[in-house]
């Protein structure tokens, strides 16, 4: 973006290019939205109008939440120039542990049961992630190898917990975490969440603008600010309308936002805050940008690395709980091949495998794209092996496109 040259001279582009410059939009984001639109409309045409129904979009949002939660963590891993191939297996193992604790160790039906089991899942996830991170950061084994080992180890452990037996059914309240029949918040609360989101966005935009203006920094053109805000607000309203348009079976009661999606929104907000507003987030990006510079700046690269993997483990505990609740069962195969979707989501969402670049919101959008593809393929009844071929190809093409994009920017 060569809008400002070194001498302070501002070269303004005219016409459509100038329009997009003033909006300060990421071209990559626009490309992602275009890809999403193509996938949605494409599948809608192929399936004869089934894809773009409230029911399917509602289900799509639930399916996206698991991959989305993990993808936010994968962004940090890849930004710091590592990789985590073990997330699917770790999720599977944690899913078994949560299910077994809930059904066999704690009294099923006790009101605290699901809370304690989820907390156990989160804590164990953090420990597992940190342990892998310790091998990577303090023992110098490449993340690729450590987590490739983890892929086998934790899938094996998932089986070992019950020798492969599926554990079901689970706690009633716990099942709400997965969406399911009653696992959404209804029309009124959906509107409350949506409007609160718009209000928060407006507040943030105004205060940010004021603060920058007060310090005498350049700000975005007012009309551009309003356009961006209006588009985002419209997206939120659209989301609310779609979620509310899907009704509970045989009633006209609106489902509203599913609880797993609410969890995903919470994770996205928390992770975005972590990335933007804390030292930890800043250091992760610095390490990705130039590991040597990070060391010379006195950053404890090892500790940060360990914590990144701990965080991914924690998110695997959360996503595992959601997935287990959705299946209403602990099965040792939960999350198989999930790591591929998660990595693909992060990469499609603009996380560069070269390290140092990526966004949380992009990764969630990537997760939505991946899940749209998968869900669409299920709708057109493509056999699973064929679906895997597509996912594999998409992963490779996404990385190639990232390379092309990075090279063009140089």
């Amino acid at each position, binding site marked *: 973006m060569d809008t*400002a040259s*070194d*001498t*302070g001279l501002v070269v303004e582009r005219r016409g459509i290019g100038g329009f997009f410059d003033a909006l300060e939009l990421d071209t990559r984001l626009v490309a992602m939205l275009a890809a999403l639109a193509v996938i949605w409309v494409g599948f809608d045409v192929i399936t004869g109008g089934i894809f773009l129904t409230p029911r399917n979009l509602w289900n799509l949002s639930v399916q996206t939440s698991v991959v989305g939660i993990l993808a936010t963590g994968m962004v940090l891993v890849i930004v710091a120039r590592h990789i985590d191939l073990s997330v699917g297996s770790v999720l599977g193992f944690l899913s078994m542990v949560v299910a077994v604790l809930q059904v066999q160790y704690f009294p099923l039906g006790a009101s605290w049961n699901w809370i304690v089991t989820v907390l156990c899942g989160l804590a164990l996830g953090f420990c597992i992630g940190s342990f892998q991170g310790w091998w990577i950061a303090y023992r110098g084994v490449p993340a690729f190898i450590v987590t490739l080992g983890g892929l086998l180890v934790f899938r094996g452990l998932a089986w070992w917990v019950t020798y492969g037996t599926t554990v079901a059914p689970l706690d009633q309240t716990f099942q709400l975490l997965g969406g399911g029949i009653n696992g959404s918040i209804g029309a009124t609360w959906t509107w409350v969440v949506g409007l609160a989101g718009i209000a928060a966005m407006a507040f943030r935009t105004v205060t940010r603008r004021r*603060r*920058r203006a007060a*310090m005498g*920094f350049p700000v975005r053109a007012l009309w551009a600010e309003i356009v961006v805000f209006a588009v985002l607000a419209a997206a939120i309203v659209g989301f609310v309308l779609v979620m509310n348009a899907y009704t509970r079976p045989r009633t006209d009661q609106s489902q509203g936002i599913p609880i797993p999606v609410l969890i995903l929104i919470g994770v996205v907000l928390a992770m975005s805050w972590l990335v*933007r*507003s*804390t*030292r930890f987030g*800043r250091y992760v*990006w*610095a390490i*990705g*940008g*130039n590991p*040597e*510079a*990070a*060391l*010379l*700046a*006195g*950053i404890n690269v090892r500790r940060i690395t360990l914590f990144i993997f701990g965080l991914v483990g924690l998110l695997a505990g959360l996503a595992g709980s959601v997935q287990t609740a959705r299946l209403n069962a602990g099965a040792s195969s939960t999350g198989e091949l999930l790591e591929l979707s998660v990595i693909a989501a992060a990469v499609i969402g603009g996380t560069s495998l070269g390290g*140092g*670049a990526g966004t949380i919101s992009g990764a969630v959008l990537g997760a939505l794209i991946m899940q749209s593809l998968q869900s669409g393929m299920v709708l057109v009844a493509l056999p699973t092996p064929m679906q895997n071929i597509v996912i594999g190809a998409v992963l490779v093409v996404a990385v190639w496109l990232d390379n092309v994009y990075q090279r063009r920017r140089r």
Partner: protein
Amino acid sequence: MTTPLVEMKNISIHFGGIKAVDDVSIDLQPGEVVGLLGHNGAGKSTLIKILSGAYRATDGEIRVAGTPVTIDSPRDARTHGIETIYQTLALADNLDAAGNIFLGREIMTPWGTLDDGAMEQAARQVMKRLNPNFVRFKEPVRNLSGGQRQSVAIARALQFNARILIMDEPCAALGPQETRQVGDLVKRLKAEGIGIFLISHDLHDVFDLSDRVTVMKNGRVVGTCTTDSVSKDDVLGMIILGKLPSQLSSRDRELLQ
């Protein structure tokens, strides 16, 4: 003589079999500029990286203002007031100027979050002193020119009131105007009592700015001379031949012992 700001005594460091720095002793007085010269691979960068905490010496002692100190990390060096402009600049390419200047020493809000506004403001101020043409504060430094990147690296060293400044090829990528500005800056800092190690291949700059020069060859010190007691040709001879010029004054010979 007053107590030196820094003394590095009998410093050695080995990388595997290579003695990159071998029994080197140098010192620096307050308000003094010491130029470090030598061929490529002489060990200049390695020597100053020991002082800045990037490497740990295999042998030797470092004193700051007379007291022996251990510098095990860049953080240790910074707490002793040692700031470094690295030859490689050591910038995180994906962060903007303020992000780099404050890397590892961020300004925080009362709520313990990053105060990007305050950091950008401070960055604008320090840059105004250094390179008034610089306006691209929102860009990741990857998108800046070589000289602009160098300005950012210099700004980082200036931001935190260094007592001891290490400049490893600070002007390598700078244009003539910016080079002169760095020269002026060195003189100004010197007047404030800051001690500076200046590494440069530009003999002219070094002669202009330094009070003393130390020449290194193959990891060892060839000699240290006061700048006004030798000519450029003498120093060139030291760099190339690794020997002291024969007409060197006895005072300078004593400095070597």
